[in-house]
């Protein structure tokens, strides 16, 4: 498991840094988003000047955003500098950690939920041995219990659903 992760990391690190063309993808995503809001806004109705409709504001901002994102796309295509290298492993692990918290906290409680979240989040860092992860998870989850339920009194269950 650890070896696999290290190998993945290594290939990821050695990969050629992506060209900033890549940046144009951001502009394209925004353009698509803007189009969604323009179309959706028209469907909701733009109303009259006196009684602006539900869709009026999304349509106006959508149009401005569409124009701006075209400018951004053009600018990013001309940019030839190297982009930051993406770190998809951490990206996935942190996403998974949040997902684990969301899935567990209401079902098995804050303490085990926080524990599993720590374990999941620490996956992309192979420098911490498994035992270290378990100890860290235990400390963090118990501290959460004491702090959030004990001291602050948030209405969460420490163990089990509620």
């Amino acid at each position: 498991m650890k070896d696999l992760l290290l190998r993945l990391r290594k290939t990821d690190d050695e990969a050629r840094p992506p060209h900033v063309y890549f940046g144009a993808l951001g502009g394209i995503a925004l353009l698509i988003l803007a189009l969604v809001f323009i179309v959706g806004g028209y469907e909701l109705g733009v109303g009259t000047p006196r009684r602006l409709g539900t869709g009026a504001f999304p349509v106006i901002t959508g149009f401005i955003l569409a124009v701006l994102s075209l400018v951004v796309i053009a600018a990013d295509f001309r940019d030839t500098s190297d982009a930051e290298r993406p770190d998809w492993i951490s990206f996935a692990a942190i996403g998974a950690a949040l997902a684990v918290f969301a899935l567990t906290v209401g079902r098995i409680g804050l303490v085990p939920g926080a524990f599993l979240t720590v374990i999941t989040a620490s996956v992309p860092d192979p420098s911490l041995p498994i035992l270290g992860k378990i100890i860290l998870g235990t400390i963090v989850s118990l501290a959460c219990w004491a702090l959030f339920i004990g001291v602050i009194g948030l209405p969460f269950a420490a163990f089990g659903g509620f």
Partner: protein
Amino acid sequence: MEIITGFGNGLLVALQPANLFYCFVGVFLGTFIGVLPGIGSMAAIAMILPLTFYLEPTSALVMIAGVYYGAEYGGSIASILMNVPGTPSSSITCIDGYPMAREGRAGVALFGSAIASFGGGMIGMIVMAVLAPGLADLALNFGPTEYFAVILLGLVAASAVSNGSPVKGITMVVAGLMLGTVGVDITTGAERFTMGIPEMRDGVHLVIVAMGLFGVGELIVSIRANASGAFQNEIDYKKFYPSRAEWKAMFGPILRGSGIGSFFGALPGTGQTVASAVAYAVEKKISPNKERFGKGAIEGVAVPEAANNSATQTAFIPTLTLGVPGSASMALVIGALMMYGIVPGPRLLVDHSDLFWGLVASFLIGNILLLILNIPLIGLWVRLLKISYRYMYPTIIVLICVGVYSLNNNVFDVWLTLVFGWAGYLMRLFRFEPAPFLIGFVLGPMMEEQLRRAMLLSRGDPTTFLTRPISGTLIAITVLLLVYAIVSAVRQRRRLRKAAEALSET
């Protein structure tokens, strides 16, 4: 004269041992809660609300106020140390505070933030004492058209918050405005872009956006950077006292930040987030040290902190004198007062002058307490950075999860944070910045609401924005700013092109 006797009496009230004690409890609790990401003054006030039933109204108010501005200060600690804004209004503090921490200057940043908060608090207090009746009238002169105009001005200023390309900054502001429309349209009750999910009806909570874009997004970036040792700068744990040059650099920004903050605080609804964003944008425009902004400029920490703390104090003006809560926390203050049969409104200053002046004086005491409490703690906070990041980041993730979950006790919010966190990371990859997005997102719903309301009230006549004096003036200033920005951008480009041509010819 009236002010001096009033303040004198207030000081006597605030210095009563009981009030002093509750003030201390308030600021202590507030700082502590503010540091926790996502758990802001709302949660802290709700937590002590049952306790206040047993107290004198003045003690209760002093304690609640202490929690409120204590949390504002505490929020900046998390921003500086972890780049996770403890409260939404300290998001702006991340922009320069976190780079300072990265350079090993976390202590200086925390000290600067404490001093700026103190300065902002003091100026906010003076504004409140001197101008409370006048500022109440200001809020009463602000109808929908004026709000719209001031928001427009704020947005134009805010697009300058970006460090990278200005076009991308404006693009992010507009994207924020657009995404702010998700949820139930408050003017018609129709659902917009909610995809049929009931939790989306109220839109996306600001804390989720701030936590996701700043907190989670940055965290993903930092994992590898830390693993590869890119950030292993030597930190001087003992040095947190700013140099003479840094003191000097902070002075002007604190004054300007407090001025802007006091203004926005007194306008119900705009609040500390907008105050700190606009103050930062203005400072960045006029500072001689522009190019340092975003890379760890002490001014960039001082300005938003001064602004949000002064806004915190002046937010009490509309709350107490008009009964209009500027924020959810202020709504809690009104609720607490009403439990004592004190109805916030125009008569409060007359009928309960001891309460009003006691509160104003407690700002002085509370801010001094905050300094006394926090300066010794700076060394301790900075030591947190010594903890290896491999222990820190899983802990931060849990803190973010709990904070977000506590908003509505609903895991849906955690899922949304995941979406915004990923979006925040992708934005960084594509060199878009989250701060302008956040400002657009805060201001968008307000802008739309006021625009549509103004059009309804004027019965469809758009000239209403120009004919009302305050809004007309504000719009004129906005247009001038825009024209100036465009002209100077075009000139700069022309100059650059000429320079490039000259270079290629040789």
